[in-house]
């Protein structure tokens, strides 16, 4: 489960930090372990995504935030959301989904995590916060938004970090 890629992102997080002018921000907490992450979203002048994040937690949750930032930064929202969808599908697949490296990049390293239900939440923490941040920024896009926000609720947490005890 602890792939080298995950450990590398954990020890050397890519793009961590806050944005100068975020368009949206969300703070999510994993109420079972107290891991937390704040994700910010913005746009660069050419319409590419800017992602900022700060968090504390286990290697899986922190590496996942780094992988997410690396995979999505600079992409247009239309290009970025299918990647998020693919990551969610992988993590909800209980180890049965074959990951596509073309789409997911370093995200494929989390395929093993999907076999551990207790850790799936860790891997999804930043991605769920990103979705909330995107909705607030008006960048969530059309189409799968409804299903995505349902996921976000199912995984707990809201902007104040209040979630089921």
């Amino acid at each position, binding site marked *: *489960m*602890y*792939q*080298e890629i995950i*450990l*590398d992102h954990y*020890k050397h997080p890519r793009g961590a930090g806050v944005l100068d002018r975020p368009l949206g921000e969300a703070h999510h907490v994993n109420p*079972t*372990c*107290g*891991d*937390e992450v704040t994700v910010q979203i913005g746009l660069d002048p050419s319409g590419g995504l800017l992602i900022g994040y700060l968090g*504390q*937690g*286990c*290697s*899986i*949750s922190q590496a996942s935030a780094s992988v997410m930032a690396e995979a999505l930064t600079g992409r247009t929202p239309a290009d970025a959301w299918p990647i998020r969808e693919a990551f969610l599908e992988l993590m909800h697949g209980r180890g049965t989904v074959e990951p596509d490296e073309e789409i997911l990049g370093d995200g494929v390293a989390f395929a*093993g995590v999907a076999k*551990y239900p207790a*850790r799936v939440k*860790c891997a999804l923490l930043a991605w769920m916060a990103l979705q909330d941040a995107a909705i607030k920024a008006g960048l969530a896009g059309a189409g799968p938004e409804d299903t995505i926000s349902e996921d976000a609720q199912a995984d707990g947490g809201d902007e104040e970090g209040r979630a089921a*005890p």
Partner: protein
Amino acid sequence: MLDVARIRKDFPVLERTVRGGQPLVYLDSGATSQKPTSVLDAERHFYENANAGVHRGAHALAEEATDAYESARSRIAGFVGARSEDIVFTKNATEALNLAAYAFSNATALAQHEAAGIDPRFVLRPGDSVVVTEMEHHANLVPWQEACRKTGATLRWLPLTDDGRLDLRAVDDVIDRTTKVVSVVHQSNILGTINPVRLIMDRARQVGAIGVVDACQSIPHMPVSVGELGADLVAWSGHKMLGPTGIGMLWGSAEILDAMPPFLTGGSMIEMVRMEGSTFAAPPQKFEAGTPMVAQAVGLAAAVDYLEAVGMEEIREHEHGLTAYALHALSQVPGVRVIGPQDAVDRGSAISFVVAGLHPHDVGQVLDSRGVAVRVGHHCAWPTCRRFDVPATTRISPYLYNDESDIDAAVDGIRAAQAFFGTGAQHAAPGLS
């Protein structure tokens, strides 16, 4: 000395292997204990021979089921030195503590409309205080927060010292004439601390407050006579003491149980029902609305028999030895910091720790990959984690079926996690990929 090898034979689940054929090392009894065959047999025997509704029905099975249920209550009461009629069955300890907290918010609500028959000891008003400690499980914190929110009373708490004990210098200041209820954990589920509850309950009595003790982590691990705690109410659960899930207990002195308004209402708890209103049965039935957990009570009584046969004093001694052994072993691992008392004095066997540079989730995962089951997270004691400035901890919590080899397995696993995350990052360790 406990014969751990013989005891282990009574627990079928301890025979199994996990994560690729490794023996299970179960060090998570603070979350829930494993069950001996005799408990499982008792439940099965009840369902196969005497299953029926209790306290009603004019047939042989109903009579036998009622006998089984009430005889279980009497054996469980005897285990904690109580009278049978002073034991209320609930679904778990959380419900038992809510029952206590709701006695206050319900009495307060009732007092708005009907003065007669409402015991003023349970009425909370702005200016009144409710006292807990900074080491409570959420189950003994959130219900009191809510009771305060509904009534305008103020929640106060006894602070902790840096070594994870109650700061007793604060007792006389925090518990004062405004205090209506003091609810305190006997043995902390996260720190392992055994609190001097008698001293705190005596102070509660002195100021006229109701005293409540959360005994979830003490009654399974040491001899406890509820009357000697000095409390009015004592809550604990069955599943942490070898019994089934789905059953908890609230002990109360007869006088207090009588004075408390009911919590859940409906069938089985009434004396007389008319469309205009109802009167309630005497305790404990007053607090047992609906079909009760009969099979669970029968199973828990078998657990009590098992514990008594082994001997609670022997179990305490065994765990005390394991605690001292584990504290010493952990102190030998550089980077490990125990959160809670550093010695085995007035301390139970639940031991929380953090490992420098490693998140508890990752420690737990490496231990799990080696077959060692521990709990990670905030242990439903989030404010306690904040007090010690840690986001979470890893916790080992042994019981009568663990021995020193289990502690060794955990300590070896911690060292393996350190090696893996510290120096072994370029290669996935065997069994971890």
